[in-house]
C-alpha cells in the first residue's frame, strides 16, 4: 500500500547508527527526545497507578482499602511523580527537544552533550524516587511543608528532596539549552517574527525554568541540611518561620505550572493553524502573551498560601496580581477561536485534542480566578475544588496538548502514521473519562470535601463513585495510544514528508529526518503559517 519509500531504507536519525551505546551516548537531540519519551511515559504510568489506588480507596466513604498513613504516601507519590517527572519535562524534553532545532533550521541544540546530561540527571533522579517509593515513600505531600517534613516525617524526605534537586538541574539545563539555541542558532532569514509559536512557547517556558528552578533547588538543599545537620532555617524552635519555606517553595512551584502549560499552548497554535488551514490570528499577541505569562507567573506565588497565616495585606496584593494572569491566557484562547473562524476546519485526532484543550483549559483557568478571589478561596481552599481546578488545567490542558502534539508529529518522528480511527476513539474516550473524573470534584469541593483525606461523609459517595468510574475510563483512554502508537512503529502506514500539508520547517525535511535534520541548509524566506500559499497542494498521506 505504501507508495513512499519505506523509512527503514533511507538513512535517517533512527537507523544511522545501531546498538545500545549509540542510543545511551547519543548527542542527537532527536534520539535524546526519544529517550525522554520512553522514560517520561514510564513515570506517567507509575503516577497513574497511584491515581487509581487513590480513586479505589475513595470509592467508599470509609477508609477501608489502605490505612491513613498509606493513603498519605499514595497522594504524595502521585504528586511527586506526576509533577516533577511527568508534567515538567513532558512537552519540553520530548517534543521540544525533538522539534526546537528543526523548527528554527538548526542542526542540533546549542549544547548537545549537556542535553544528554539532562536526560541522565532525570534518570538518576527518577531511580532515586523509585527507590523511595519501593521502600515506603514519603507522606508529606509533593509540597514537603515544614516543620512536618523537617522534624517529623520519614527520613525518606532527604532522598526525595535530593532526587527532586537533581531533576531540577535536568530542567535548568534543558531551559538553558533552548534559550541559547533560539537566540544563536536560527537559520538565515528566521527572524523572531517568523518563529513558530511552539518556539515562542518553549522560549518563554525556558525563561521560567532558568529563573525559577534554582530557588526550589536551594530550598530543598536547606530542607536536607535541616534534616541531616539540624541547621534550622525553617525550624520554629529556633524562631524559624514555616511560611518562609512556603514562600521559597511556591516562588518556583507556581511558575512551574506555567512551565507545564506554556509548551502545550504552543502546540495548540500549531495544531489549530494546521487544521483550520489558516495563519494564527494575532500572531504577535499570541507570541508575546507567552512571554507575559512567564513574567507574570513570578508575581503571584503566595496565592497558594492565603490561609497559611500570611499577612492579609500581602494576600490582597497577591490576589490582585493573580487576576492579571488570566489576561494573556484568555488572549490566546480568543486568538485560537478567531483562527478557526472562517478557516477550513477538519477533525483529525490532533484537532480533537485541541478542541478538548480549549474547552477544558478554559474551565480550569476560570476556576483559577475563583480561587484567586480571597473570599471564595477561604471556602474552597484545600478542598476538591482545588484538585479539580488543577487537574482541568494539567490534564485537560497539558496532557491533551501533549497527546495532540504527539499524534501530529508522530509521522515526523517515526515515519509512520498512527491509525486515525483509533486515534479519534481514544481522544473521545479520554475526554469523556476526564470530565467524569474531575467535574464531580468541583461539586465535591464546593460542598466541603477536603483534599488529601482518605475517608469522607457518606453523602459524598455518589460523586466519588462517578469520579472513580471516570478515572477508569480515562485510564483506558491513555492505554489506547500506548498500544496503537507502539503498534504503528511496525505496522502503521508509511508517512510522507508532510502528511498534513502543514506549514513549518519541520515539514520540509524527511519523515523521519536525517541526523543533521536537513539535507540542505535551510534558508527562510517565508512567514510562519503560510497556509495561504499551501492551500492549493492536495494533502497526501
Amino acid at each position, binding site marked *: 500500500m505504501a507508495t513512499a519509500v519505506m523509512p527503514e531504507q533511507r538513512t535517517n536519525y533512527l537507523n544511522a547508527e545501531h546498538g545500545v551505546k549509540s542510543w545511551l551516548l547519543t548527542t542527537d537531540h532527536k534520539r535524546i527526545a526519544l529517550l525522554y519519551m520512553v522514560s517520561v511515559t514510564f513515570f506517567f504510568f507509575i503516577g497513574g497507578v497511584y491515581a487509581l489506588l487513590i480513586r479505589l480507596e475513595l470509592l467508599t466513604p470509609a477508609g477501608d482499602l489502605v490505612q491513613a498513613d498509606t493513603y498519605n504516601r499514595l497522594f504524595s507519590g502521585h504528586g511527586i511523580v506526576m509533577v516533577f517527572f511527568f508534567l515538567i519535562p513532558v512537552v519540553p524534553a520530548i517534543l521540544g527537544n525533538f522539534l526546537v532545532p528543526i523548527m528554527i533550521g538548526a542542526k542540533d541544540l546549542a549544547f548537545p552533550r549537556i542535553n544528554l546530561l539532562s536526560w541522565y540527571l532525570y534518570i538518576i533522579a527518577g531511580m532515586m524516587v523509585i527507590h523511595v517509593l519501593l521502600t515506603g515513600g514519603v507522606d508529606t505531600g509533593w509540597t514537603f511543608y515544614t516543620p512536618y517534613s523537617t522534624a517529623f516525617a520519614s527520613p525518606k524526605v532527604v532522598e526525595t528532596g535530593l532526587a527532586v534537586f537533581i531533576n531540577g538541574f535536568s530542567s535548568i539545563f534543558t531551559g538553558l539549552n533552548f534559550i541559547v539555541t533560539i537566540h544563536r542558532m536560527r537559520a538565515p532569514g528566521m527572524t523572531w517574527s517568523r518563529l513558530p509559536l511552539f518556539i515562542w512557547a518553549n522560549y518563554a517556558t525556558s525563561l521560567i525554568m532558568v*529563573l525559577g528552578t534554582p530557588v526550589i533547588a536551594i530550598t530543598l538543599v536547606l530542607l536536607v541540611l535541616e534534616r541531616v545537620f539540624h541547621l534550622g532555617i525553617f525550624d520554629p524552635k529556633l524562631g524559624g518561620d514555616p511560611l*518562609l519555606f512556603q514562600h521559597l517553595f511556591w516562588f518556583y512551584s507556581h511558575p512551574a505550572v506555567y512551565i507545564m502549560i506554556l509548551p502545550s499552548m504552543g502546540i495548540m497554535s500549531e495544531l489549530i493553524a494546521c487544521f483550520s488551514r489558516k495563519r494564527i490570528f494575532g500572531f504577535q499577541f499570541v507570541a508575546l502573551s507567552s512571554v507575559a505569562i512567564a513574567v507574570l507567573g513570578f*508575581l503571584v506565588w*503566595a496565592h497558594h498560601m492565603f490561609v497559611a497565616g500570611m*499577612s*492579609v*495585606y500581602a494576600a490582597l496584593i497577591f490576589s490582585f496580581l493573580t487576576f492579571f494572569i488570566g489576561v494573556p491566557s484568555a488572549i490566546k484562547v480568543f486568538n485560537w477561536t478567531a483562527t478557526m473562524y472562517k478557516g477550513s476546519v477538519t477533525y483529525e485526532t490532533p484537532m480533537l485534542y485541541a478542541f478538548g484543550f480549549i474547552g477544558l483549559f478554559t474551565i480550569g483557568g476560570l476556576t483559577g480566578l475563583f480561587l484567586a478571589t480571597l473570599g471564595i478561596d477561604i471556602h474552597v481552599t484545600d478542598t476538591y475544588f482545588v484538585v479539580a481546578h488543577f487537574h482541568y488545567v494539567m490534564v485537560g490542558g497539558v496532557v491533551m496538548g501533549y497527546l495532540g502534539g504527539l499524534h501530529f508529529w508522530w509521522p515526523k518522528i517515526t515515519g509512520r502514521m498512527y491509525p486515525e480511527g483509533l486515534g479519534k476513539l481514544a481522544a473521545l474516550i479520554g475526554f469523556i473519562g476526564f470530565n467524569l473524573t474531575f467535574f464531580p470534584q468541583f461539586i465535591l469541593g464546593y460542598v466541603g470535601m477536603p483534599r488529601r483525606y482518605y475517608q469522607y461523609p457518606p453523602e459524598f459517595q455518589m460523586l466519588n463513585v462517578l469520579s472513580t468510574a471516570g478515572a477508569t475510563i480515562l485510564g483506558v483512554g491513555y492505554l489506547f495510544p500506548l498500544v496503537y502508537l507502539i503498534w504503528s512503529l511496525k505496522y502503521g502506514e508509511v508517512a510522507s514528508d508532510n502528511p498534513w500539508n502543514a506549514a513549518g520547517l519541520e515539514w520540509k525535511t524527511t519523515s523521519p529526518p536525517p541526523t543533521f535534520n536537513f539535507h540542505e541548509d535551510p534558508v527562510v524566506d517565508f512567514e510562519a503559517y503560510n497556509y495561504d500559499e499551501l492551500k492549493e497542494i492536495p494533502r497526501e498521506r
Partner: protein
Amino acid sequence: MSENEHHIVPVKLYMLIGGTLLFFTWVTYAVSKIDLGPLNTVVALCIATFKATLVVLIFMHVKYTSEKLTKAVIFSAIFFLGLLLTLSLADFGTRNWL
C-alpha cells in the same frame, strides 16, 4: 560577546580597578567602625554594589560588549531576585499591621 574577543583591556585599567576594589574594601571596614545608625548598612551595601559593578563591567567585560542580550540577562537576574525579596517582604513586613 563578539567584541570581547577583540577588545583587550589595558593592564593599567585592570590594576586601577583592582586597586579601587581593595581601597573600597578598606573603606567598608573603616566606616563600619563609625556609628551611623541605620545608614551603616546602606553605606556598606552601596559600596558592595559599587564594587560588584566594577567587577561586572570591567573584569567580566560587560562594558566592552556590543551584545544587548548580556545586559538584558544581567538585568533579569537582578529583577527576578528583587521580586523574590520584595514580595516576600510584603508578607513578613506587614504581618504585624492591624
